[in-house]
């Protein structure tokens, strides 16, 4: 997944691989979920754990070049696309393809993007692939400046992500 070489003045281009520990709040209409969110993003593979506050994994999503697998306490599922799979099994879409870029404040390489930046050149709003993403908060992480809060909206679905810890290469 080649990241675009968008030069952000000041901050280095965010890394292609990362680990993220945080919390996710999902809301779609009156339904939703909230819990801990651990994400290991590699060059070719991803592992995401959705956890309850007490640390129990509610779901695990694994992606590699062969496809996407979703495991929950009552079943194992597979598909080609994470968003489709999470929509059908969990009831809400996790746009993993775009999110691997959006979560570090970058646009995804495919699809036109409408970007609004702040004075420090950090992206504060990004519209791409029917998603509207807002970045209310950033934090310095070594050579990088990375979002510590991300809000992603698509129709009636809202995903709020609070990043407690970035682990970068």
């Amino acid at each position, binding site marked *: 997944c080649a990241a675009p070489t968008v030069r952000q003045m000041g901050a280095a281009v965010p890394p292609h691989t990362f680990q993220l*520990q945080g*919390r*996710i*709040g*999902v*809301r779609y209409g*009156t*339904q*939703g*979920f*909230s819990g*801990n969110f*651990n994400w290991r993003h590699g060059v070719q593979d991803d592992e995401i*754990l959705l*956890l*309850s*506050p*007490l*640390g*129990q*994994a*509610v779901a*695990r999503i694994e992606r590699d070049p062969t496809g996407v697998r979703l*495991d929950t*306490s*009552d079943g194992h599922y597979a598909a080609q696309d994470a968003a489709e799979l999470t929509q059908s099994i969990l009831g809400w879409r996790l746009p993993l393809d775009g999110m691997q870029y959006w979560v570090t404040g970058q646009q995804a390489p495919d699809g036109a993007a409408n970007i609004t930046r702040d004075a420090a050149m950090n992206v504060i709003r990004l519209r791409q692939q029917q998603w509207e993403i807002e970045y209310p908060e950033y934090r310095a992480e070594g050579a990088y400046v990375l979002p510590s809060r991300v809000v992603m909206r698509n129709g009636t679905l*809202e995903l*709020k992500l*609070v990043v*407690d810890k970035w682990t970068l290469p």
Partner: protein
Amino acid sequence: SGVDSLHNFLLHSHTLRAQFTQMVVDRNGKQVQNASGLMQFSRPGKFRWVYEKPYAQLIVGDGVKVWMFDADLNQVTVKKLDKALGSTPAALLAGNNEIERNFDLIDGGRGEGLEWVEASPRTQDGSFEKIRLAFRDGTLAVMELRDHFGQTTTIRFLQLELNPKLAAKLFVFTPPAGADVVGD
């Protein structure tokens, strides 16, 4: 034995208050979370589980529903108590006899002054594969939870008070103004 300690504990603990530390280790043995807070319960079905560190999260069982509030996300997730039983050990501790009804109990041995009991859920739909509880001199000391993905949560209870007087309002939850409320 561990099973006797559990029965006595359930029989004699109408209310309870304790500090707790919580550590979560993933299937590769890597520590993925370290949290702490205050836990209180009032049988049956009422509990208040407050995470103070590393961030503010609150889980309240009011006897009918379980309310989970994350301050940073400003979101409240509500579940019916019976549906939450499988996923909220606090509900088990504060339950009537859920742990005896829904779990097979066997002695888990003794070590370092602790008597263990192992509870395996009779139905596999909860999020736990196994729960282990440890008692020191008949008092709850440790709760260990293993899920279906090899994650293990170890909760240690400290400064435990048995049958303290607890105000009823501790077990009532009103969503803060402006918070998103989701669930049933």
